[in-house]
């Protein structure tokens, strides 16, 4: 009789601990900052509005969430400075610009630290901070715009699949992968890419206090190593997050540092788990096959 009450109590405690554990990990990346501090905010993966990433590798930076986070940090008087730790090759133009604008509206000291890569849209984001740090071998810059896509017209023709074009408005299906672009359409697309490129160049020039000509010379789409970027004025200092923090401490004051971990949604967590599980199985299978081949060769 007594045992069943004990069993019931144990089950309740066990389930409570499970609930607690789930919420603990879920809220681990919380940005509630109490007490004066510097914040290190990571920005990893492709930048898009919803942070959906791609099919094989879900996740990335959601500009909507990132901007929200920046607003929270801006409104929090305990936050004395923000360091954005960038590891991203860029992404959507509008999403990048959203983050750039949010940074420009911040009245707090913001630094960017480029880790492995901070290129294209991610460099644009970095340019909107007060100072950019990068390792001598980080990849940065890549000020350019890509509009490339796969076009399947010939492949479809080969398999007897036709594209029945029905449009009202001459350019309505411009960019469809089912047919090649006409010369007219190519010119239009190129013009639009150039407009975005110009906008990108002008904004980087404004942010970095460089002349438009200076940036335009560098904005041929190539990436620059940190050491080159420093020479060309695209970054301010060579260094890592610790260097940036030390500088911030010297300039603002000695406050503790809080690193906001990237909070993965449960879907992202499941997606990433599946990705790494598949990758692990593939790697192990590959090793086994290699070993088998070696054994065959040796025997």
């Amino acid at each position, binding site marked *: 009789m007594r045992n069943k009450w004990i069993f*019931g109590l144990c089950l309740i405690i066990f389930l409570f601990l499970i609930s607690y554990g*789930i*919420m603990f990990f879920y809220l681990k990346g919380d940005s509630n900052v109490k007490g004066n501090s510097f914040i290190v905010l990571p920005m990893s993966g492709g930048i898009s509005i919803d942070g959906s990433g791609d099919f094989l590798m879900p996740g990335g930076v959601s500009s909507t969430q990132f901007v929200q986070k920046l607003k929270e940090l801006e409104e929090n008087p305990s936050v004395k400075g923000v360091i954005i730790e960038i590891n991203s090759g860029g992404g959507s133009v509008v999403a990048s610009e959203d983050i750039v604008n949010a940074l420009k509206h911040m009245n707090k000291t913001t630094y960017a630290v480029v880790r492995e890569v901070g290129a294209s849209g991610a460099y644009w984001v970095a340019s909107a901070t007060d100072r950019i740090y990068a390792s001598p071998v980080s990849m940065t810059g890549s000020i350019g715009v890509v509009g490339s896509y796969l076009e399947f017209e010939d492949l479809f023709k080969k398999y007897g699949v036709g594209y029945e074009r029905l449009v009202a408005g001459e350019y309505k299906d411009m960019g469809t992968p089912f047919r090649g672009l006409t010369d007219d359409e190519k010119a239009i697309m190129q013009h639009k890419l150039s407009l975005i490129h110009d906008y990108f160049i002008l904004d980087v020039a404004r942010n970095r206090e460089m002349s438009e000509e200076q940036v335009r010379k560098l904005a041929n789409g190539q990436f620059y190593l940190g050491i080159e970027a420093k020479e060309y004025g695209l970054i301010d200092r060579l260094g890592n997050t610790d260097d940036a923090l030390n500088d911030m401490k010297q300039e603002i004051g000695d406050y503790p540092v809080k690193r906001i971990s990237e909070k993965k949604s*449960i*879907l992202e967590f499941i997606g990433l788990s599946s990705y790494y599980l598949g990758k692990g199985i593939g790697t192990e299978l590959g090793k086994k096959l290699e070993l088998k081949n070696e054994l065959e060769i040796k025997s």
Partner: protein
Amino acid sequence: MIKKKLEVVRFWKRVVAYFIDVSIINLLILFPFNAFFIDKSLDWKKLFEIQSSEELAILSLIMVVISLIYWVIMEYKLQQTIGKMIMKIKVKSVSDKELKFPQIFIRNLLKPFFIAFLIDVTYMFIIKSNQRLMEKFSGTYVGEENNEK
């Protein structure tokens, strides 16, 4: 086929037992999930933004699973939940055999879904039976603790 006449348990006892269990689940077991709503600053607009509603759906699913674990494990191991222990009632098999896990799982399947559970219970009144719809499917019923067969 001869229908077995099931012993009748007072309906109010089952209702009280259910509310005791629901209180235990919501006030104790699922209490940490309140942090999610506090995290969203109880801002319902925020809660139903696209990203939040996705998180809300997944957290709700986890809450459903945890609630189900409570009902199913308790009834599978003890034929009773805390509420049923207090009200001295017990889950039994129509066939008088030992209760099997799938039976327990099926009879509890709709409990975490309020509307579905209401329909499940309404069946008792329509058919004037001592069994809920899911109890009928699972071949189980609720009887008095002391009337062991």
